[in-house]
């Protein structure tokens, strides 16, 4: 398992671990369709280590989260 942050742009990956991020962030991610087991990819990285835009591929849902949080999200490459 690796961290979402380390994934290359546009590489589809499966979220495998959301337990290490802040409780409220996890809930909001789940409410937006980013749950363990879903397939996501990084769409964009903002400059100066700004937020990442990630997409829930199946739902075509996009959110932005910070890199420090993305680092704590575990993913596996299918």
């Amino acid at each position: 398992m690796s961290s979402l942050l380390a994934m290359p742009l546009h590489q589809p990956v499966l979220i495998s671990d959301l337990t290490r991020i802040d409780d409220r962030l996890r809930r909001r991610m789940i409410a937006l369709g980013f749950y363990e087991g879903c397939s996501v990819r990084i769409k964009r990285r903002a400059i100066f280590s700004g937020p990442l835009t990630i997409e829930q591929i199946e739902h075509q849902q996009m959110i932005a989260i910070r890199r420090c949080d993305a680092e704590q999200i575990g993913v596996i490459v299918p």
Partner: protein
Amino acid sequence: MTQRIALIGNPNTGKTSLFNRLTGSFAHVGNWAGVTIEQKIGQLHGNIGQLIDLPGVYDLDPLSADEAIVSRFLLQEPFDGMFNIIDASQFERNLQLTLQLLEMGRPLQIGLNMVDVAEGRGIHINLERLKERLDVDVFPITARTGAGCEVLLSSLRTTPREPFVLDYGEETEQAIQQILEATGLGERDRWVAIQYLAGNRVISEQLESSTPTVNEIRKALEVKLGRFAHAHITERRRDWTKDVRHHVVDQQGAQQATVTDRIDAVVTHPIWGLPIFFTVLYALFHITFNWIGAPLSDLLDGFLSGPVTSGTSSLLQLLGTSSFIQALLIDGVIAGVGGVLVFVPQIFVLFFFISFLEDSGYMARVAIVMDRFMQLVGLNGKSFIPMIIGFGCNVPGIMAARTVEEERERLVTIFISPFMSCSARLPIYAVFAASFFASNQALVVLSLYMLGIVLALIAAKIFTSVLAAEDRNSLFIVEQPPYRVPQGLTLWRSTWQKAKGFVRKAGTFIFGGSVFIWLLAYSGPAGMDVPMNESFLAMVGGVVATLLVPLGFGTWQAGASLITGFLAKEVVVSTMAIIYAVSESDLSASLLPVFTPLSAYSFMAFVLLYVPCLATVAVIRREVGSAKLTWVASLYGLGVAYVVSLMIYQIGRLFGLS
């Protein structure tokens, strides 16, 4: 009979658009999570009741102050029915909220919105099957065009429904029953127990204070499940939504790069994102002032100072009114109110662009582009949106801070909001920039906006370290909705919604203020019709003026207008117009001998920073809920303004500017 119907749904699903379709009045519409910042109530067509537009929520468990409004509404306020608006193109996500609403068992109808977007993506939803699965009425609508909206309204039903029951598995069902027994709730309130187990903060607070044993029931359940109860419940719900989707949604066609992707590739570009954002801001001001606003304002001014003034004065002479009345109307009311009215076109244009940005979806991108910056001062990218809204008016800006989840960040955002240069300050800049910086007005005005932003950021840094240096929590997650071309009619109406307050103020506040100021200028210790220099206004202004000398504008006229500016910033211009007894275009000429470019800039900076207007102070009081903090938020600007203007003037002089 006034039945109350609530609009509930995820952010950006078109609730406000529907609200605007179904009610006579027009609430503000925006395309970024949380634009509906407080509940708006409108009369439904045909007077069958009231429609309440609530902020968007993803879940009944609130993370931010605006989401808490919804939870509190559902728990505490009386209402007769709900319209749940679902975004058909994000069906599964929306359904999670719908399930929670269905479990509540209150009268509910579903408006399936954005069907056009869904079809464009090859998503087709089988309405019959959906109705059957949910056991509730579903109406396809397009809130943007109004299609289907009247049907939804005419089939409004407020008869009670049976709560929807989803089986959460044996252990959880037992725990639900135990909670109902312990709290004395009936089967109809099953949803309360479920929300409790799912970790809803508002419900937890209520239940745990009245019945502490519920906590043990939950812990026992978690031991049995071997995981958190909320994790189990969300998973069950997700399985259910997936299953429903599987049954009712038919999706064909592969994904292709959407317009949104292409726009995003540019505006959130790692390198170009930031310059583009500032270019957008600059273009906004340039168009507002140089291209559209200024010519229109000149036209209006020509009309007011020409035909209106001469017409009124000949009419008054014809009627044989006293010279007192003539002076009051011409020099007081027309000069004062007119001096502000001429800026209405510019303010409309500015509000139009802000509405456009909000409605397009760009604001959610601004949050990304600015997050890194804002983090440096202890805020987050979301705080920047209230700041931009504050460019229109600080009052909605401060209310929009509710979407910032972290309480510390919300407070700091409110504190720095008054530094955002609102449209009421425009008339002042416009007069001074036109007189002293005629060739680069937009640049000078933009520099003031930037000054406000920079000082706001510095202030944020200081407040953050004072309020809670050790509390480093920050929550940042922003939905990135697809871009949508704002709809002309909605755009116009939301512009009008915001700008009409300004026109109304001109008719009330500024009218009254003008009469009062004129009287102060007309009378003095020696009686009526005194020379202006011996008036009460000159006396009061003179006291303040001595303090202002080091800033470069130590005249009683400046002092008096600044005092009156607390009522509303644009009154500064009214007061000056009255004092110099001229119309707006001649005001420039009267100011030329009194100010230099340097002292004019120092004055503009002072006006930008010194105190929030009365309405802003009132909203700060409401939002921070503490008199002490309100005092701090209202008065620290005065010190900042003094220091900044002092520096501008004195350093400018050192460099030989004048």
